[in-house]
């Protein structure tokens, strides 16, 4: 017993010592590389640089990105890139914590809707004008990536809303999906299908129907740039009536069932019991499975629609930490990723359809891009709506909106009550933003 205790005590002593010693080393591993560069400067012509690159994704994206990093390190022996990858959940929280704590990576993948919140602090992201953007659509860049004349992020991909069609489903129920270009015909066809097959629904509501419909009704932002509401009670009533109709008539799966699942995991979709869904083309690979054939068509329109409702946006941006020590080197790496043949071909389409036209063509030539994805994106780009502004995609606005839509879907509120509630509650949120 005595021995055991003495061993434990000695061990604890050693650990304490070890802790004390390693204190000095750890900061060097963080992003302050001053000490490091000083140490290596005299010997090397080019100083050793470690860049931290953080992104989210799934296995295929991780693998392709790691391969690209490896290639870049080969081409530039003095640069080492430390990968920091993870899944989507918790990524934003981590990013915000790190930005606030001043420990963010040098190169970061960010989602476009976050910019509104992230750019409140000046110099969060460095200006990336040194990256060659001649192959990118300049309108697109101006709308989504340039703020205060600074290119705060380079788009890694383009996404645009499309309808993804499960042709296997439509063959089975014997309906021609090409005729479904307006909401009314979808509702009619949905009613018919559900009366024949009780567990089949024509439409899969992933939560994006309401916004699209409302945009087609109003032609406006949900919350305008001057912080006034972009809809009247009458207009929003129309949208809620639409929600009510599709749930009442079983055009979509009852909310009680669909609320349990995230998009790709819904058993009804997997088992070919749903016909079409409004989605981003980047989701095509995960919506696909062995037992179905997919197709894309453009989003159904309203008669006399004031706008198309088709959101087009960067699927994600790649940005550089404005407070990082190696802004120039980071920008060079990004330039290589999006513009060099080697970079494009190693990254493939793991971040959706590339935003640069040159990269798109190169990938299609090499058979590395799912043609359906390209088709979906180009379809969406034909007739996009205005960019969704930051107020409309504000987290609180979205939460309130979702709650009220759910109430209608679950038959707790009538469309009239919902419309009145929407007006007062969104107004409350907007008032808070104003102050």
């Amino acid at each position, binding site marked *: 017993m005595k021995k055991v205790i003495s061993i434990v005590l000695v061990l604890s002593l050693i650990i304490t010592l070890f802790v004390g010693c390693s204190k000095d080393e750890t900061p060097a591993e963080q992003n302050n590389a001053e000490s490091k560069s000083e140490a290596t400067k005299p010997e090397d012509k080019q100083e050793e640089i470690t860049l931290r690159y953080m992104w989210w994704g*799934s296995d295929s994206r*991780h693998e392709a990105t790691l391969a690209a990093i490896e290639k870049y390190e080969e081409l530039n022996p003095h640069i080492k890139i430390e990968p920091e990858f993870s899944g989507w959940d918790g990524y934003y929280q981590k990013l915000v914590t790190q930005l606030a*704590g001043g420990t963010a990576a040098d190169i970061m993948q960010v989602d476009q809707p976050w910019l509104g919140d992230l750019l409140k602090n000046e110099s969060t992201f460095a200006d990336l004008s040194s990256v060659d953007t001649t192959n990118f659509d300049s309108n697109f860049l101006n709308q989504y990536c340039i703020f205060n004349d600074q290119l705060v992020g380079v788009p890694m991909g383009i996404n645009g809303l499309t309808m993804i069609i499960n042709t296997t489903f439509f063959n089975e129920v014997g309906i021609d999906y090409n005729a479904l270009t307006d909401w009314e015909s979808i509702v009619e066809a949905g009613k018919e299908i559900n009366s024949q097959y009780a567990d089949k629904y024509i439409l899969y509501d992933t939560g994006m129907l309401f916004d699209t419909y409302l945009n087609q009704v109003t032609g406006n932002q949900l919350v305008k740039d001057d912080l006034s509401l972009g809809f009247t009670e009458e207009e929003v009533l129309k949208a809620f009536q639409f929600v009510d109709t599709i749930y009442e008539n079983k055009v979509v799966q009852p909310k009680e069932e669909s609320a349990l699942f995230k998009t790709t995991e819904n058993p009804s979709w997997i088992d070919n019991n749903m016909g079409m869904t409004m989605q981003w083309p980047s989701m095509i690979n995960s919506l696909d499975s062995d*037992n179905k054939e997919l197709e894309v068509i453009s989003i159904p329109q309203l008669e006399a629609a004031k706008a198309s409702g088709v959101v087009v946006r960067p699927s994600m941006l790649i940005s550089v930490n404005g407070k990082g020590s190696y802004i120039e080197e980071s920008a060079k790496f990004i330039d290589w990723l999006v513009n060099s043949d080697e970079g494009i071909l190693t990254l493939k389409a793991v971040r959706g359809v590339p935003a640069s036209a040159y990269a798109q063509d190169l990938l299609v030539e090499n058979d590395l891009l799912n043609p359906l994805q390209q088709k979906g994106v180009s379809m969406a780009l034909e007739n996009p709506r205005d960019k969704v502004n930051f107020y409309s995609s504000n987290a609180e606005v979205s939460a309130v909106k979702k709650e009220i839509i759910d109430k209608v879907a679950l038959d707790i509120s009538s469309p009239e009550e919902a419309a009145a509630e929407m007006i007062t509650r969104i107004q409350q949120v907007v008032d808070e933003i104003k102050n």
Partner: protein
Amino acid sequence: MSNRRQLITYLFLILLGIIMIYPLLFLFSASFKSNEEIFSSISLLPKELASVTFEAFRNGWQGVGKYGFSTFFTNSFLITVPVVIVTIISSSCVAYGFARFKFPYKKLLFTLMISTIMLPSTIIMIPSYILFKNFGWLNTYMPFWIPALLGSDAYFIFMFLQFFRSIPRELDESAIIDGCNRLKIFTKIILPLSKPAIISAGIFKFIWTWNSFVEPLIYINSVSKYTVALGLKMSIDTQGGEVMWNEMMAMSCLAIIPPAIIFFVAQKYFVEGISTSGLKG
């Protein structure tokens, strides 16, 4: 009558047992299924029994790029084992102080210590993050080891304290007569008698540290330093891309093995009482 009652009791217990263990069995069986099957059937047996392979385990273990689950498991042990050891040492020392010594402001200090039990860990997350950042401890395992070394777990201190209080002071006194000093009393009398408390603290701390997700998530950046919990989350991207759920399930199965082993090995002591063993001699 009593037989029948017993039968009903057993039936009820068996049914409850099945309900409780079903998710665990599903987890295991799901590692042999395809993505579509995982979400569309609740059967434990995969549809095509002939094609069942351990591929999910093999592929999952390899992880992504250079870092596989051998790295993540090593990292998890690297955090958990020292943390468990130093927690036991530090908590029992502090508890010994409170249990057997008289010192100024003892009551106040004790109240302060106990009040930290009530503090939700979410509240101290931001201050501790800033503190560790200023120490330069981010992206290392210091934020796990050092607080444990300094007895930051008031819960375990309290547990040890209650335990020590139940050890009769007469034992201390007789040890003093035999020529023991305070440290010897602690190491030779109190600690050996507290085996059940030490083991319970060890089990709890092991399982909590092993399973903790938020702390590693915010303190660790490099994938090479990820723990198992982070490694599991690494590939789940619900936005796009396909998630290989069967690999995730396979690795989850492996991830619960260490805590399960610890629990089953130590459970004998876990439930053992002190009162009898303490007064034997």
